[in-house]
């Protein structure tokens, strides 16, 4: 049974009471604890300590605050008035215990030291094991009379104050500890907590409280001691953690502009560094505790990042432009526990405005440099091709073709150049451009076969500024826009993928196009000159080339004859190349008539390009200045030799057999050596003989007669 005098009065307030009222009760009654009642249920539901209130006293507005705003404690322990010693043991260690009557109504409360005092002074059967219990706790407990004589103590006291048990009873607590504090407790009834007492032999943290009798007279003091080195160690550890935290904050602030730490639901727990203000409508103090997922309606990108990190459970990097034009990179990372469950989300933000600007400038500079390089190459190319562009011919076939081209060049109609590989289609295209009205405008060459299919569309039609990356880089104009008002030479047009053929057709028909990623139609005024060595008609039949595009391209078809069909051009072209390469390699080589004959007699499957290459090789490798036929022959591709099979399967007149053999030998020699002089040399007869006999053979052939042995 708890005696009435032992129970303290429980002062109560409601949640709506002001902090001022609370503080007045605590000051006036010297109460460490005030209870809070629930207005609806009319019962005590929480309590507040004076130490909970103290931090708020610095706030100038504290008086106006409500009790509800303070940190209160709901962990209440109840205790029946009829309780015995065992019940006291059950609540031993509790800070505050509410005492109820039989009907459960509160009669008052007990503090921790009240329970301790009861247990220490109780003369019951439980006293021995109660003492054992007190001896086992890691705190020193002393009971004294008003003069400081030590009446009771536990084993920890002996260890902490370093005095043998026999001497403790002769020692006064006020002398052992702090006489000034002890006097205050005894004289004024004050409870004094957390006093550091250090002497040569001990270092303790002491709590002092008065002991009162049933008349509220002070009959002594209870002193609770805690080992200071232990507390100090803990404090030092806490300080170290605090310092580490400060260092970490400093480091993080230096590395990134802003770091946000959120819990697994998206609630902002803390941030480091100064916030990038553009993204926050609220003051930074108000942001702690805010769930960023709730900002969805405000359109902030944080919500999207948090959502994405939660969904993917892996890193998410996002760039965003702020309201003031800052470029910000935000990287969201999930932090998971051992079981893989999301624990935290860390979002690191960095202002990358300068980096983006520098990158843009660098890219721009690179593009400009590439453009200048291209222009320089174009100029060099023009210079070079102006030298090589001369169309050299003597044949009537070419004369006729050039007259036709002169007429064609006057118009801006689409031209399709066809001819075998190496006939010089680009030279013809440039000639049309040079002779045409667009010669002061750009000539842009695109090799449709040399650009990867994935790139061809953007190369031809370009793409819009910042259309795909969100960055403010300039787009790409594309070849069509580059050739505006000029000529676009589409070499190897047969290589154009079917998908792009449709787009090209649209440009040819409508004279307009839409760049990639763009939405606006761009008008283009371009003359198209297309070229191919493929048979487009056959490709149309095979479904490899669009018929409508084919007809759109063949407005003016020009067929360039292969070199073998105009052999009279070969000596002239050969001498032109000889002159060019002599200049280039600083040589002064010449071609003998035999050499020219060999060149003229050859079929040139690789056309002018092959002829050019052979002459270059001859100029570079020639040991002597005069290039003879025998220098050339090994370089030419061996043509399929006419097969002369011996048909001597029966007896025939000797004269007839001799003539057939002679025809066969002369034909073989002419196929191999091309000229009558060389063939004569090889067969060991005069050139006039060979010349005469070979002419007879040719005539026989033209009459359709068999040469050599009859089959």
């Amino acid at each position: 049974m708890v005696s009435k005098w032992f129970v303290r009065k429980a002062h109560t307030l409601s949640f709506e009471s002001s902090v001022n009222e609370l503080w007045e009760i605590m000051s006036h009654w010297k109460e460490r604890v005030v209870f809070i009642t629930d207005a609806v249920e009319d019962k005590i539901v929480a309590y507040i300590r004076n130490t909970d209130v103290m931090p708020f006293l610095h706030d100038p507005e504290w008086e106006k605050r409500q009790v509800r705003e303070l940190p209160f404690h709901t962990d209440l322990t109840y205790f029946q008035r009829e309780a015995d010693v065992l019940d006291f043991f059950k609540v031993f260690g509790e800070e505050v215990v509410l005492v109820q009557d039989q009907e459960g109504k509160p009669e008052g409360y007990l503090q921790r030291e009240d329970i301790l005092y009861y247990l220490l002074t109780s003369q019951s059967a439980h006293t021995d094991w109660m003492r054992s219990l007190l001896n086992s706790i890691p705190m020193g407990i002393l009971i004294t009379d008003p003069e400081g004589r030590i009446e009771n103590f536990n084993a920890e006291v002996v260890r902490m104050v370093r005095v043998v048990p026999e001497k403790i009873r002769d020692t006064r607590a006020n002398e052992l500890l702090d006489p000034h504090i002890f006097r205050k407790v005894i004289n004024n009834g004050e409870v004094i907590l957390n006093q550091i007492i250090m002497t040569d032999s001990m270092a303790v943290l002491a709590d002092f409280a008065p002991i009162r009798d049933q008349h509220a007279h002070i009959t002594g003091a209870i002193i609770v001691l805690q080992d200071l080195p232990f507390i100090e160690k803990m404090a030092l550890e806490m300080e170290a953690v605090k310092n580490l935290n400060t260092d970490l904050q400093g480091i993080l602030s230096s590395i990134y502009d802003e770091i946000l730490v959120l819990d697994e639901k998206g609630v902002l727990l803390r941030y480091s560094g100064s916030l990038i203000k553009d993204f926050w409508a609220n003051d930074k103090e108000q942001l702690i505790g805010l769930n960023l997922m709730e900002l969805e309606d405000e359109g902030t990108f944080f919500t999207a990042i948090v959502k994405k990190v939660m969904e993917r459970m892996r890193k998410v990097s996002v760039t965003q432009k702020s309201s003031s034009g800052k470029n910000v990179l935000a990287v969201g990372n999930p932090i998971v526990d051992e079981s893989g469950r999301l624990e935290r989300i860390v979002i690191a933000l960095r202002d990358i405005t300068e980096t983006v600007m520098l990158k843009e400038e660098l890219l721009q500079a690179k593009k400009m440099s590439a453009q200048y390089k291209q222009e320089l190459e174009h100029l060099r190319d023009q210079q070079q091709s102006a030298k090589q562009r001369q169309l050299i011919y003597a044949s009537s076939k070419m004369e006729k073709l050039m007259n036709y081209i002169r007429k064609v060049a006057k118009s801006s109609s689409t031209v399709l150049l066809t001819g075998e590989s190496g006939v010089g289609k680009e030279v013809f295209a440039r000639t049309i451009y040079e002779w045409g009205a667009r010669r002061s405008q750009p000539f842009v060459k695109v090799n449709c076969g040399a650009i990867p299919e994935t790139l061809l569309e953007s190369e031809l039609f370009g793409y819009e500024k910042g259309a795909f990356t969100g960055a403010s880089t300039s787009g790409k104009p594309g070849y069509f826009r580059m050739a505006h008002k000029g000529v676009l030479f589409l070499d190897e047009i047969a290589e154009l993928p079917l998908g792009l053929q449709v787009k090209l057709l649209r440009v040819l028909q409508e004279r307009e196009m839409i760049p990639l990623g763009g939405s606006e139609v761009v008008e283009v005024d371009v003359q198209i000159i297309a070229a191919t060595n493929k048979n487009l008609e056959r490709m149309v039949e095979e479904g490899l080339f669009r018929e409508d595009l084919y007809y759109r391209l063949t407005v003016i078809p020009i067929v360039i004859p292969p070199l073998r069909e105009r052999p009279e051009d070969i000596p002239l072209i050969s001498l032109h190349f000889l002159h060019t390469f002599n200049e280039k390699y600083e040589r002064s080589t010449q071609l003998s008539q035999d050499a020219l004959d060999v060149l003229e007699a050859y079929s040139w499957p690789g056309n002018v390009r092959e002829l050019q290459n052979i002459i270059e090789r001859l100029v570079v490798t020639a040991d002597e200045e005069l290039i003879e036929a025998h220098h050339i022959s090994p370089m030419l591709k061996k043509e399929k030799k006419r097969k002369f099979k011996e048909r001597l399967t029966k007896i025939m007149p000797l004269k007839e057999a001799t003539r057939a053999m002679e025809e066969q030998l002369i034909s073989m020699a002419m196929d191999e050596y091309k000229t009558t002089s060389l063939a004569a040399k090889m067969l060991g007869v005069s050139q006039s003989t060979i010349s005469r006999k070979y002419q007879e053979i040719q005539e026989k052939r033209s009459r359709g007669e068999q040469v050599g042995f009859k089959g």
Partner: protein
Amino acid sequence: MSRLVLKDEIIARLAGTIQQISCQTGEYVQEGETLFVLVSQEGETIPVISRVSGKVGELEVELGEDVIAGMILTVVYME
């Protein structure tokens, strides 16, 4: 002396779903090449193009994944 390598982020301009991935990590891509195809929430098909030539870095998204506006899909390391 090591050469400065500039990286260019490939960014989804709009929120949407990755419909096509046309590049691989380590692959060399050309300026103007389509690396991803995105279908926006409005159903618009948007090619995401590289504005530089270089090597593709780690892919940050998978086929069919929803992306948010401004999200970095990969980076291209310019030479």
